[in-house]
């Protein structure tokens, strides 16, 4: 799952991402691409995030645990 997330992130942010990539250390992770990223994640993993969750998903590690949590609940 981590690899798939990184793949999507790389595509959306148009830069190579790493495990520790977050909104502060990634220049291209702006508010517009953030929503793009979330939409791609929702489609790929068939989950839906609440607005509050979307606002909190500021790093790849948070994104991963969030998706993990959602998938476990299904």
């Amino acid at each position, binding site marked *: 799952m981590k690899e798939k997330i990184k793949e999507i992130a790389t595509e959306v942010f148009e830069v190579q991402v790493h495990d520790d990539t977050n909104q502060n250390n990634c220049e291209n992770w702006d508010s517009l691409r953030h*929503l*793009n990223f979330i*939409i791609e994640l929702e489609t790929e993993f068939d989950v839906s995030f*609440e607005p509050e969750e979307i606002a909190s998903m500021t790093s790849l590690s948070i994104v991963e645990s969030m998706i993990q949590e959602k998938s476990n609940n299904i």
Partner: protein
Amino acid sequence: MNWLVKIRYMEFFIFRNITIVWFFSYFKSSISGYEDISFIDPDAERYIWFYLAPIKTDNKVISAEIRNYIDLLKLTISRIPSSKTFIIFTLSDIYSINTITGANDIKEAVKYYNSTLHELALEHNNIKVLDFENFLSRYSSTELIDWKYYFISQMALNPRLSNPFHDWFKKQVKSIELKRKKCLILDLDNTLWGGILGEDGIEGIQIGGDYPGKAFLMFQKQIEELGKQGVILAVCSKNNIEDVRQAWSLNNSIVLKENHFAALKINWVNKADNIKELAQELNIGLDSMVFLDDNPSERDLIKTVIPEVEVPDFPTQPYMLPEFFKSIAEKYFSIYNLTSEDLSKTKQYKENALRNNVKSTFTDMNDYIRSLEIELSIEEVNNITIVRAAQMTQKTNQFNLTTQRYTDTDLSEMLNDGAKIYTLSVKDKFGESGITGLSICKLNGETVDIDSFLLSCRILGKGIEDAFMNWILNELKLLNFKAVNSKYISTAKNIQVKDFYERFGFEIISESGSIKSYSLNLGDVQINLSDNYKYNYK
């Protein structure tokens, strides 16, 4: 040859009133501010007008705004070059609630908007109206809006529709552009000038001076104009290239010289092969080329071998050239040709157009701004507004001179140190924006340091940024401060304000790396508060 590259890429400048970036992210495009018509990218290949009915709760306001959009559009049409395609989307009300009173007003306003578009298209042949319903009607009303994304980002249309939209839109653009040819291929002897260069010599050919040279001169000048409009010019001629180059450099009557042409095929190879090569070199289709040659057998060859290329008959007498030019210019190179479907619509709208003489309500931007009845309410920050003020420093990227991020605690501390923090709320005849501007002024004896100055992109394009700055300078002057220091700190996103302070007479004190420091002597400046706005200060 930069412009050739441009022709191959789609390049749009999009006027819009909602968040739409996803929908055009596949295209090379730049986007206006929300309902912002003040800036028009002069380098864009084409322009797009993409407005949807505003999502608001007061139906009277919605219908008034829709009618106002038409005024914005008319003003915009008058300001963009008529040589460039302007694609205008019809307007749809994607969230209509039929049972609420006033719903009919909206329907009427939408009808007025869309029928005006067709009238405008009749008057301006660079305008192409795209029927957006054609796309939207594939979806149910619940599919059209994803409210979650709407509330997060003002994205009225469901972002998941962006892929199908992209496919649909690309097809529409293609069908608009197909009708227009891109390249004009020209023979030289007895086509661009009278006589034969190889026989009559450089000074012997007829160009300029008396008839028939006069007629050829006019013809060349007209073709030069086509080139300026973006038509690619090329030469295909049986000649020695050295002779032609010599003629270009020595005969000053010749208007069309080597630099006008994107490609040259001046040789003794058959013209069909030459034209095929031109198509490859220029990376355009054979079906987007028009070939002009006075020699009927050359024309016949091309018609037979490459039927995709348009080959009009060439006039037998030079005095027939103006009529000939008019016919090819209109037939192949007018920006937008009416389709048969449009023609039937044309009949429908022609009568309307005659009745309502379509004229812009506003003559210029000033006029437009005044019509909005804008009120600027400026307040010093208080316990309630301080949270919003801090939030603005956190979120504003584009119109932000220093991009300093603060929490409300930071702001409280500054207040304790005597800083003046001004918030700006904007109201116009359509409604209120809430707090959308902020300036933090730190006091230092008789000098003021403007630590932060920022506005939400939502209110840009109406001169409000200048009015707010002038108001602050005026206020500081009234408070007897002597000088103001300020800074511009460049980031990846705030390029648009890099020369902001210069507009108010600030002088650059130092410039290093990403920081420009300014100073302004308040005693020296004459501050004019524009009367386009009403100012309220509490």
